[in-house]
């Protein structure tokens, strides 16, 4: 997908460095000695099905969850709770439409929302808020209440909120989960542009990697609490993912899309491929499952 050189990651300049991190909760191991690094300016997809451990990884990187073992370095320094160089974009806001908070208020809180004390809003604060709203193309609805915005508009405001404090690392938790395809693509393009222009490392979690394929520099594939990291060409391969899952899976390329299907049943018989639709790992909802089933059978037909 991209020409980024990787495989070995340089210790210097890595924005995020995760080394041998394990997390146990309630007697259950959620992360099993994971490790990867993120470089500035790179757009990385954190891919895996629900329950694979994506959210846990994000919580560890945010400093909200202490790993049972291993270490997390942000810009070469051990993670602390108040790490200003990590920005976070949640999936969605649960807020009433009549809540008296405008989009620009929320972006402004990205600068000083953690600060106790009273201070008159400064001209500098206003300027940076304005600048950030402009950067994410949200100026049009800057004065609307955040609760009234559509999913895509809210994502833009949340991205501005996360970026206005000039973090080096931006985490986005399933931003595409609540968006229609077009808004989702706009958000992905926006984040990719921001990563390149501002030399920020972007880590975006998703259960389907396909919308990210055109812009993704690297992928961190999560399954069963373990990860495989590298470029998509290095990671999204039948033998790598089979080893990660611990059972055979097949990686199929269909019309520029990548499908990961449970491998044991894949034969040239279209009916059998339909069966594998249940075991695939790219889309969680039934709609996507149907979709993959059909695509997979097309692939099987082409192979024949």
């Amino acid at each position, binding site marked *: 997908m991209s020409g980024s050189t990787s495989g070995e990651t340089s210790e210097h300049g890595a924005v995020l460095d995760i080394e041998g991190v394990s997390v146990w909760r309630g007697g259950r191991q959620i992360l099993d000695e994971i490790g990867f690094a993120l470089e500035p300016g790179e757009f990385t997809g954190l891919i895996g099905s629900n329950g694979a451990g994506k959210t846990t990884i994000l919580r560890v990187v945010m400093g909200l969850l202490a790993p049972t073992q291993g270490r997390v370095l942000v810009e070469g320094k051990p993670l602390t709770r108040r790490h200003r160089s990590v920005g976070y974009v949640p999936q969605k806001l649960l807020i009433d439409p*009549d809540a008296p908070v405008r989009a620009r208020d929320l972006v402004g809180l990205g600068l000083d929302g953690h600060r106790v004390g009273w201070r008159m809003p400064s001209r500098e604060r206003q300027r940076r808020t304005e600048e950030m709203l402009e950067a994410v193309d949200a100026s049009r609805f800057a004065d609307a209440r955040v609760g009234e915005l559509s999913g895509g508009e809210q994502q833009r405001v949340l991205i501005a909120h996360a970026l206005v404090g000039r973090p080096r690392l931006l985490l986005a938790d399933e931003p595409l989960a609540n968006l229609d395809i077009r808004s989702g693509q706009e958000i992905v393009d926006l984040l990719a542009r921001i990563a390149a222009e501002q030399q920020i490392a972007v880590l975006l979690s998703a259960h389907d990697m396909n919308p990210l394929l055109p812009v993704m520099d690297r992928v961190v594939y999560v399954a069963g609490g373990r990860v495989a990291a590298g470029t998509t060409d290095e990671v999204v391969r039948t033998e790598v993912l089979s080893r990660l899952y611990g059972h055979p899976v097949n990686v199929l390329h269909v019309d520029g899309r990548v499908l990961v299907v449970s491998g044991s049943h894949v034969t040239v018989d279209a009916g059998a491929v339909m069966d594998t639709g249940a075991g695939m790992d790219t889309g969680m909802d039934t709609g996507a499952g149907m979709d993959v089933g059909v695509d997979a059978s097309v692939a099987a037909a082409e192979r024949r």
Partner: protein
Amino acid sequence: MEALWHALFAPGFFTSQPVRQAVLVGGVVPIVAGAVGVFTVLRGQSFAGHSLSALGTLGGSGAFLLGITPLWGILTCGFAVAGVMELAGTQRRRGRDVATGLVLSTALGVSALLLYLVTMSGSTTGVTVTLLFGSLFALSGITVPAMTLLALVCLAVLALLYRPLLLSSVSPELAAARGVRVRWLGLAFLLLLALAAALCSVAVGTILSTALLIGPAATALRLTRRPARAMVLAGLVGVVSTWIGVVLAYDSYLWPPAGKGWPVSFFVVAVILLCYLLAGFAPAARRGSGRAGPTGRAGEQPSSGPREPLTPARLR
């Protein structure tokens, strides 16, 4: 002109000591109620506010039986309940609802007993009504300065915590990501809410306290989109409503049945409701305002599931 003036402010209004106290308290308590109220609505804790007020009955009647000023009883009870709520809040949601309902009804049951004992204790038949429905004209010695001081403390703390509180009210997740201690902040707010509810309870009674806490805030949300402005507006609506209520209540001594004034709290709550209804006509209340250019964009509509096709069954 003079006739109108006298019709508006009945003779003796400006020289009466109870009126002066009522105007002072009515100028301070609603300011606190407005600011705390906007946060309460924003955080979806209106029910917690109502529970804290209702439980004030227990503290107030208990304090009266012990011979203490009701304010202290209401306040102590409120803080204790706020602490219990926070502890219960860490557990599952369903358990919390059950616990709140159970504690609330038990406490009100005990209040019924205490109020009965208060009534039985003799000379003080008006206490029950005063406690439940308040009386701005019947505030005793220490209560007025104490309330003013507590109100100022509440406002000062609220101003200090303003930004983290606003962020965590919009999204606890975002606040936590910025390193805000969301749980401690939640507890701090609950204590401020208990304080505001106690002040409102003394002013307009434990039952009507919610009206003063939530009413002006709800009105302000219809008038502005800005958080700080909403708090100031809510405060102003509360103060004006209370003052109008005080004037009308004083005038009502001359209304039938003559010789007995109507309850102040009735007027205050009535004016608050009127403000809320009038605010519905304000342009800022309309949805979608605050956007430049044509509202909405093609492809930006929130996609909430597939649209249902118009089947014959639906057309029928």
